[in-house]
């Protein structure tokens, strides 16, 4: 067949037109003139950057970079260091804190940061209308819980007051050994009153946005990136290293790894963003880091349902689980098996041992409970949310219980929100669960199983347990407090067993220590961006990073 020149020419013209159209369309999306000094793959798109209302860790990392509180995290071990407060006094009974705010501390727009900013911000967190899911972080302050739960409407009754512009007094219900840790948490950071009152929910889009932290917000394009720029007015700006930082939202592990491998990103710091299939390979690399993390994986029993009202059944099922198999075959990132709930390495505490793996004892207990060889055991379900790892663990547990005890369990795979609703309404037999600590103290794990805690979700109510937790938190002596908390945990994981811990999470991150310093593994997986330094010339590994760590620690 022969085509006329004319027709060919016109089709060429059409092709060229399409090409021009494409290129011009694409050119329309060029936005970032330069690559940031540091690009971090951060995890899911932040639901918010308002420190008072956020709950996600990815959100918190950005919020803390923008809004610093009275204390700030030490990059090496995430313990609290002086932040906007240069020092503080603690009363002999441990119940009154007086913070002295730095004279150098100013908002990024130049106004001084005062004690009144803190009073406003904490009252805002506690106001039910703010909808702060983390308001509980302030319940240690006198009058705070009653205000948040609507028992009184007077914010003046909350135990936080400005003695003068630079002095803040806080009165606590109990001596709270982790209160300085809480002060570094984003919920307690000061926020700009004028801007919030002017712009309402959209206050973070205000230009300029006054912040107190090491970086200011340049742009926040949803699902694209958050761009930060060094705040020259930050009190410690001399030790903030990177000028421009991009935080990229990403939820697909392979995409995160691709970005990292091709140099489009420098750091991947979310454990969910490491492809499990590649763990064997990654673990051999020097730029892959794993470490103990403040998180536990466990399952809950529903004690309102038979046969889980019988402690022998709960213990029998716990003893029949070979936890080692779960971490070696499924999770595979070096997780430690758990017999207790509070992760190892937590501050102020060492956990007592809980139940181990003992199938013989398990069968004996089940027989005592009247279900020898699983005979007559009611149909129960194990509920989990649709995530591959949870599913694999569920299948493994199902198999273990069938093999060791002759019990048949039904697996129930639920979509996330349906799962949460079923869990809080106690519509399950067994439920997959996990918990990430909110502060570095055993209480963040143990207080959730108090009878009236909204996170209990087991139907287990134990007065002695409640009493022990309350007693422990009113004690000033750390040793006595630890002993009391241990008694409570023994009740939880050895004697009453409303939950069965399976393993402790590990932090998993990708970054090259030869090119980046100032980032250290720690139990909170808190890596302040201000201390991260980029080296054009790769570093001699151990000696220099060690020195930098020592310097950061000194500050």
């Amino acid at each position, binding site marked *: 067949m022969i085509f006329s020149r004319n027709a060919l020419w016109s089709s060429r013209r059409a092709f060229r037109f399409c090409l021009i159209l494409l290129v011009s369309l694409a050119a329309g*999306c*060029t936005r970032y003139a330069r690559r940031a000094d540091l690009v971090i793959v951060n995890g899911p*798109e932040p639901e918010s950057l308002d420190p008072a209302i956020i709950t996600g860790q990815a959100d918190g990392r950005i919020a803390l970079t923008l809004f610093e509180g009275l204390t700030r995290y030490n990059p090496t071990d995430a313990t609290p260091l002086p932040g906007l407060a240069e020092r503080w006094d603690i009363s002999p009974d441990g119940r009154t804190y007086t913070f002295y705010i730095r004279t150098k501390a100013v908002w990024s727009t130049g106004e001084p940061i005062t004690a009144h900013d803190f009073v406003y911000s904490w009252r805002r967190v506690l106001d*039910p209308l703010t*909808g702060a899911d983390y308001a509980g972080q302030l319940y240690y302050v006198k009058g705070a819980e009653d205000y948040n739960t609507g028992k009184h409407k007077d914010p003046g009754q909350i135990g936080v007051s400005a003695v003068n512009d630079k002095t803040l007094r806080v009165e606590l219900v109990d001596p709270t050994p982790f209160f300085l840790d809480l002060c570094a948490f984003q919920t307690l950071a000061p926020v700009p009153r004028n801007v919030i009152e002017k712009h309402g929910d959209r206050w973070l889009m205000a230009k300029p946005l006054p912040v107190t932290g090491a970086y200011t917000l340049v742009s926040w394009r949803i699902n694209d990136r958050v761009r930060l720029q060094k705040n020259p007015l930050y009190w410690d700006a001399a030790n903030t290293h990177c000028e421009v930082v991009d935080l990229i939202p990403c*939820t697909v592990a392979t*995409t995160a790894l691709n970005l990292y491998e091709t140099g489009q990103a420098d750091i991947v710091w979310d454990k969910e963003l490491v492809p499990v299939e590649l763990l064997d390979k990654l673990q051999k690399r020097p730029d892959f880091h794993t470490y103990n993390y403040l998180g536990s994986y466990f399952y809950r029993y529903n004690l309102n349902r038979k046969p889980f009202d019988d402690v022998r059944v709960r213990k029998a099922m716990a003893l029949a689980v070979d936890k080692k198999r779960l971490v070696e075959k499924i999770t595979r990132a070096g997780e430690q098996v758990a017999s207790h709930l509070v992760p190892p390495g937590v501050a102020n505490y060492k956990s007592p041992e809980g139940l181990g793996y003992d199938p013989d004892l398990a069968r004996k207990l089940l027989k005592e409970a009247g279900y020898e060889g699983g005979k007559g055991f009611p149909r129960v379900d194990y509920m989990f949310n649709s995530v591959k790892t949870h599913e694999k663990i569920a299948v493994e547990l199902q198999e273990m219980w069938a093999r060791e005890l002759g019990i048949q369990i039904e697996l129930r795979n639920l979509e996330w929100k349906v*799962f949460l609703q079923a869990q809080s309404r106690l519509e399950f037999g067994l439920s997959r669960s996990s918990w990430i600590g909110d502060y570095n103290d055993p209480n963040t794990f143990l207080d959730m199983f108090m009878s009236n805690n909204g996170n209990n*979700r087991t139907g287990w109510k134990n007065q002695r347990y409640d009493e022990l937790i309350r007693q422990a938190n009113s004690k000033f002596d750390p040793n006595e407090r630890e002993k009391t908390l241990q008694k409570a945990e023994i009740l939880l994981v050895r004697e009453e067993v409303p939950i069965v811990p399976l393993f402790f999470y590990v932090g998993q991150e990708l970054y090259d220590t030869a090119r980046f310093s100032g980032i250290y593994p720690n139990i909170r997986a808190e890596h302040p961006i201000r201390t991260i330094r980029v080296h054009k010339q790769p570093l001699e590994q151990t000696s220099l990073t060690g020195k930098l760590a020592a310097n950061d620690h000194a500050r």
Partner: protein
Amino acid sequence: MYFLRRLLFLVPLALIISFLAFAFVRLMPGGPFDRERAAPSPEVRKAMEAKYLLDKPLLVQYWHYLEGLLKGDLGPSMKYRNHTVNDIVLQGLPISLTLGLSAFLFALGVGIPLGFFTAVYKGRWPDYTGSFVALLFFCVPALVIGPVLIMFFAIKLGWFPVALWGSPLHVILPTVTLGIYFSGRIARLMREGMMTTLNAEFVTTARAKGLNETAVLLKHAFRLGVLPVVSYSGPLLADLLTGSFVVESIFQIPGIGVFLVNSLFSRDHTMTVGLVLLYAVLLLVLNLIVDLVYTIIDPRIRYE
């Protein structure tokens, strides 16, 4: 007149769709404020539900929503609490439009010639090869083709970035990933359309008049042969322009495709309804345009 009537008909249709979407998302179990961490007090939860009117009867909620809609306001997002649905659509839609239009042009640019030639060379080797290629395009899902393209062109050869958005180079791989399936479909539609037309009497007449083959194919047969592709283009374009969950996820592209799916999972009701409405209006308008294009291409078609 006909088109004016159809344009007017759009309004009640969009209203019905928005109401159905509004009612259905609220029937789902679980709500936007069911979280792993329980709200610290029932008062906090109540305050949140009151803020987004979730404590009001459905019709009252919908009435408030309509009031906003009249002013062009799709409401606040219940998940991204510092953003309104408008904010997110305004940021994401241009990106989804760019990607969708590129993929659309790619699909047409590949599919139409492929279908055309396979029809013209029917029963000979170019037909078999071309049809096989079209079938291949048609069968391999984006979930497979995307990573393969990334692996080869971005990681091995380093020609394109592996993900993200921001320069013309970022557009190429997602365009191919998104468009390739549709190019296969278009090729098949085009081939069928051409084959039917080539057997028609007017083509025989044209040939009998002594017109050269190029003129017969391009001037006479093509015009009618392309009609099935045109009618498919309307819904296809609506589909592509509103973004793709898979492609946007693989390439981490900040479009609105991911939001439609994720908003359902997070029970971000206002976001779901807003995006469904956007999609519906786009689909209705594009179908109308397709019908208009028909009358231009095929003079035998008239609407009363």
